[in-house]
């Protein structure tokens, strides 16, 4: 079981996770972190739960994870960066998680645009960022992370698309140690974010991305765009080479077409 005392004993961070809320069951760690952020809870506060009854992903899609096997947590950040950079927080979170995963001894974690982290071509971590923007400022940013750690089996629709650190490593790993690593990695990468410097983060992300040079399809509502992924713009947009010229994508569901 995760406990506040055990987690804090293992933390090597200065501020991330120093304020910590641990729940056995919660509706959603992101929703809780949002409530806390609205109540002026300080940057770096972390909400951890063993189980989420209403875990969610993009567009309210459910995020399901077995209790007591994985890591589900949300971090409150208050980055004072220009608004147009807000979109780059996605890459910051993905890269920080990928770096922490590497430390557990897996093959280098792979990034898929915009924010999935993969091992062996399967999703090991989902990230949901929620920013609160008012006028010119980012009031707060909630980084919600669902990391599959020790789950051994996934129900059918997920079986071919999801994996866990345990599956990748062939052995169970200590969740508290893993959480401490991810939080430290987030704190370190956040140093760059604070300075508004995303160059190293984007470079790391690009080197981990498996999509470049491949044909992909982006579904955005009823709009379908197919093209070759050729690069990442400075603002995080994915550049596709399509039959009608280059196109930059900012939202949508990505699927990789099978390699020819």
């Amino acid at each position, binding site marked *: 079981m995760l406990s506040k005392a055990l987690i804090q004993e293992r933390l090597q961070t200065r501020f991330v996770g120093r304020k910590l809320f641990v729940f056995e069951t919660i509706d959603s760690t992101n929703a809780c972190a949002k409530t806390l952020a609205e109540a002026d809870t300080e940057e770096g506060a972390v909400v951890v739960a063993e189980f989420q009854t209403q875990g969610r992903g993009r567009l309210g899609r459910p995020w399901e994870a077995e209790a007591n096997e994985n890591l589900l947590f949300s971090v409150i950040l208050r980055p004072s960066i220009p608004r147009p950079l807000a979109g780059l927080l996605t890459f910051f979170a993905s890269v920080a998680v990928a770096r922490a995963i590497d430390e557990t001894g897996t093959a280098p974690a792979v990034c898929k645009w915009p924010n999935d982290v993969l091992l062996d071509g399967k999703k090991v971590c989902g990230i949901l960022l929620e920013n609160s923007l008012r006028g010119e400022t980012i009031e707060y940013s909630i980084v919600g992370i669902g990391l599959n750690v020790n789950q051994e089996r996934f129900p059918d629709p997920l079986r071919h698309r999801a994996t866990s650190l345990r599956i990748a490593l062939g052995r169970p790993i200590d969740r508290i140690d893993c959480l401490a690593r991810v939080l430290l990695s987030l704190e370190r990468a956040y140093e760059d974010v604070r300075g508004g410097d995303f160059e190293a983060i984007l470079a790391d992300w690009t080197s981990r991305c498996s999509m470049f040079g491949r044909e992909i399809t982006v579904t955005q509502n009823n709009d379908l765009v197919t093209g070759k992924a050729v690069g990442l713009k400075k603002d995080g947009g994915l550049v596709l080479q399509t039959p009608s010229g280059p196109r930059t994508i*900012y939202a949508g569901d990505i699927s990789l077409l099978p390699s020819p």
Partner: protein
Amino acid sequence: MDLSYIKKIIKLVEHSGVDEIEIEEEGKKIRVAKNRNSTGGYAQPMMQMPVYQPVQAPAPQTTAPSVPAPQTEEKPKSAEKTYHEIRSPIVGTFYRAPSPDAEPYVEVGQAVKAGDVLCIVEAMKLMNEIESDIAGTVVKIAVDNARPVEYNQTLFYIDPA
């Protein structure tokens, strides 16, 4: 000018097509105006809407009017009023509700406070809740749900309270 006289004037205005009347008598002044925020169904401000004031140069500091000045006297708003624009801070996809089956955050005609969430603009799986930086009434939602929006594109027109 006694109370019953004033009451009469109020009734008169209420049941007429006049929105506002000002009477000056022996140095005493009375002004009676209809409350436009009431649900009385005066479509009046909406009728004059098409004057969306062609984008006054990349709206320098939209933060200034966020604290409404204490109203000393009900100043009638001129017909050529400008609405406060809520613009997209990023390139992304505009969503009026937190999930496809949820109720929209706001509808036209709804009163909002500063800090109320108006919509989500999604970019790179980052859900950006866009809050109102002003109190007022939503007079127009300028983008259809789930459509792409550009940086600085106007999303909402708010009639400041």
